């Protein structure tokens, strides 16, 4: 198969990185290459500006976190520079030591999100990490600069980790304006920068924080994931601990949309390029953190009609499935492909915007992240 015809699903699991190769029919798949065996891969991403280049957030209790990069679609990988919290010896402390109320600095714990920069900045990459850290590279990951507006934010001493840690897990760049950057931080909320990361402002109005005494604070909401609409870059879909939300004004005000579903808890959300105004959520039981209805289900939000639709025939895939924040992805084809990886290692694929579903015939380790490599333009 010619390189340009190949279609790849990039799967980050509890035990390594799996590249799943297929064609644009999206019905036949081949597993491999496999890399980073034994490591926790929280995110794998293809750099659309540099075909063949992949980044992986490789986390290990043995080695600590490592950023790895491949230049050949995952056949081989190299460790590239991993940013560190500069707290030892000759490095200046990341937090303000002059302030005695500052928490003791914690080492970099896990890498959560790798975001290739704007198309006009072909060597820029952003990296989100635990504890609530943001870094920028302007040389494709060879070196990193911390972003003080987040990493030294005056309020961060009040920021707590969520169950998954103090993750900075969502980084979105406005396709019209590279200086407009949006972030999502667990148990802190969303932020927007209009100046390339020099300053960030919280953007959580309308989002419920059911676990805090003040149910609508400026920050403290536990955002799980946010995606941008493909047609309208001012529109975002948000899965939060406190429900499912949409905004149409660059996150100035969020509107809860999940209430008709009952329990609108979940982690992941995706929105396809071929169908702007649609977003896909996997609703989970808020306590058990698995599909509470006893089967696999994906809910489609139609933003124009403000309606919900179930995409999977109830009972087609019975079971209790967990899906994490990077566990849902869509491709750029028309009709859109939808991909859902579960914490028990199933990879569900719909090649036709949810009409039909199949399982990739391979039992993966528990899946943390699913994304698409070189998706051809739809």
């Amino acid at each position, binding site marked *: 198969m010619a390189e340009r015809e190949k279609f790849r699903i990039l799967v980050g699991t509890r035990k390594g990185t799996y590249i799943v190769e297929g064609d644009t029919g999206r019905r036949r798949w081949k597993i491999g290459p496999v890399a980073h065996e034994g490591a926790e891969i929280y995110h794998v991403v293809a750099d659309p500006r540099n075909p063949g280049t992949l980044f992986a957030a490789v986390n290990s*209790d*043995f*080695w600590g976190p490592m950023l790895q990069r491949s230049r050949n679609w995952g056949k081989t990988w190299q460790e590239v520079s991993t940013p560190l*919290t500069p*707290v*030892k010896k000759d490095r200046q402390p990341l937090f303000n030591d002059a302030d005695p109320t500052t928490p003791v600095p914690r*080492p970099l714990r896990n890498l959560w999100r790798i975001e290739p920069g704007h198309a006009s900045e072909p060597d820029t990459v952003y990296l989100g990490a635990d504890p609530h850290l943001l870094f920028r590279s302007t040389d494709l990951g060879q070196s990193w600069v911390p972003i003080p507006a987040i990493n030294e934010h005056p309020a961060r001493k009040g920021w707590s980790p969520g169950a998954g840690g103090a993750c900075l897990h969502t980084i979105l760049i406005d396709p019209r304006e590279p200086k407009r950057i949006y972030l999502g931080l667990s148990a802190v909320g969303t932020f927007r920068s209009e100046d390339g990361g020099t300053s960030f402002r919280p953007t959580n109005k309308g989002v419920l924080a059911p676990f805090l005494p003040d149910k609508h604070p400026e920050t403290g909401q536990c955002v799980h994931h946010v995606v941008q609409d493909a047609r309208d870059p001012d529109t975002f879909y948000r899965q939060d601990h406190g429900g499912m939300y949409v905004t149409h004004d660059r996150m100035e005000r969020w509107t809860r949309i999940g209430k008709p579903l009952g329990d609108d808890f979940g982690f992941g959300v995706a929105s396809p390029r071929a169908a702007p105004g649609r977003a896909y959520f996997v609703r989970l039981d808020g306590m058990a953190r698995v599909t509470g209805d006893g089967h696999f289900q994906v809910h489609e939000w139609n933003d124009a009609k403000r309606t919900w639709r179930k995409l999977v025939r109830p009972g087609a895939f019975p079971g209790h499935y967990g899906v994490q924040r990077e566990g849902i992805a869509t491709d750029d084809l028309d009709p859109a492909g939808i991909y859902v990886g579960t914490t028990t290692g199933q990879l569900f694929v719909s090649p036709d915007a949810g009409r039909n579903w199949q399982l990739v015939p391979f039992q993966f380790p528990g899946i943390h992240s699913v994304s698409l490599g070189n998706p051809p333009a739809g």
Partner: protein
Amino acid sequence: MLDVHLDSWLREFGPRGKERLEADSVEHLLDALEEKYPRLRFKIRDETGRLRRYVRVFVDGEDVSGTTGVETPLVGVQTIDILHSIAGG
């Protein structure tokens, strides 16, 4: 001089066989090791200087990871083993 042995996983980032180094503490030994093998930096210790969770340092056969750790003096010591504990699932 100290004989330093690394397990097979750490040898991926450091010396392939036995290494001979001079140091008066575990911290200084690790400093010297990382100076000579930069890819070992932050694999044994995190950036705060603490041993990573599953790293075990044996000084003449005694595990000091959970006791004196990197501050362990190395006076009259002959052998250092740096290994990983059995962990995971």
